[in-house]
């Protein structure tokens, strides 16, 4: 889910790496993905017109392969910049990640938008934490709010060793983090609060 190394982030500029990623995702969607979907329809038409059952079965097999290629393209696009992040923001995009997590995850947000770069960097940092949750881990809550000209990201319920990426990302964005006990007595989990400047 997460990139191997974080690109340097210059929030706001149209040439920063996150804007570039977003544009590449668009190009994948509007170009190859749409062409392949159209190809799947044309094969369906051929299959409908052909009288030979063996040939029709062969065409259907090729369609299945096309579906698999499209699924791979979708995964690739999601690693560049998830389309839902661009269209709907951090809350909906992280909820999608939470659906695949091995532990219960609650995403709390009020649909605030923070711009392509900040949302991109935050998404991949949080997504990496959620993807690394072991089976049966305690519940995690991710809350995203705006306080003045800061984005406040509060993540509760991670194990103490699992917060490095969040802190590193917050620092790279010119923010600061506080880490403390979550207040839950029976489990060794933490609460991380990152405050990151936003426009």
């Amino acid at each position: 889910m997460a990139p191997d190394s974080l690109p340097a982030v210059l929030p706001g500029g149209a040439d920063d790496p996150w804007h570039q990623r977003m544009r590449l995702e668009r190009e994948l969607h509007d170009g190859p993905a749409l062409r392949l979907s159209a190809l799947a329809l044309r094969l369906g038409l051929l299959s409908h017109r052909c009288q030979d059952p063996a040939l029709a079965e062969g065409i259907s097999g090729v369609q299945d392969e096309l579906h698999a290629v499209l699924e791979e393209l979708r995964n690739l696009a999601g690693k560049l910049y998830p389309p839902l992040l661009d269209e709907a923001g951090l809350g909906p995009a992280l909820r999608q990640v939470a659906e695949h997590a091995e532990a219960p995850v609650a995403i709390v947000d009020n649909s605030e938008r923070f711009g392509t770069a900040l949302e991109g960097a935050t998404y991949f940092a949080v997504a990496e934490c959620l993807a690394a949750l072991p089976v049966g881990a305690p519940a995690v809550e991710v809350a995203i709010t705006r306080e003045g000209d800061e984005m406040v990201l509060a993540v509760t319920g991670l194990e103490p060793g699992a917060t490095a990426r969040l802190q590193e990302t917050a620092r790279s964005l010119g923010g600061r983090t506080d880490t403390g006990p979550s207040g839950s007595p029976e489990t060794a989990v933490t609460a991380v609060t990152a405050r990151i400047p936003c426009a």
Partner: protein
Amino acid sequence: MRVALAEDGALFREGLQMLLEAAGHDIVGSVADGDAIVRLLATEPVDVAILDIRMPPEPDGGLTAAERLRALHPDMGLLFLSHYAESHYLMRILGIGTERVGYRLKEKVGSVDVLSDTLERIDDGEIVIEPVLAKRLVEKPQGDKKGLISALSEREIDVLRLMAEGRSNNGIAGQLFVTPKAVEKHIANIFDKLGLQADTAAHHRRVLAVLTYLRSQREDG
């Protein structure tokens, strides 16, 4: 069936037109954005309007056009096509309507049979959901409800998944090679285990119940 379509990708739009014609449907119009389909259908209603979700007006012209179409013609079916099967969009679609709606991946309507089956089920009043999405919603429950789902048998999960796809009892029976009577029994058990009120008379209300239940799991986290 009378249909109209709005899709901004010319190649895909033309492909879909050819497939619809081959399936014997009557294409009233074929346009490239949400505003154009609303104008077209203001005077010329169809049985089902086929809408790309991600088209102008950006970012999701298909959804905003659908809201206006539903207000103008409440009985017109709406089939949403997308490159992505995401529960976020499903919830928005269900906010527009819970009858006569469908949400499918673009490449998966690539056969005359699947396309016609999808359109007919929508025209019959059903909710049609991309199977992979219905499966994900049913099999990956979150939070406290995880325990409830794990109380279901494997067969009951199959039935719930097909319910979430908008299938009728007979449809489910056909898919699972069992009698409709057996399906009814499974559904009664599911409702019982999930603590839902059974209402076998109105099947889309039942689907809505399932989806509302799934949505509440997501919101609870």
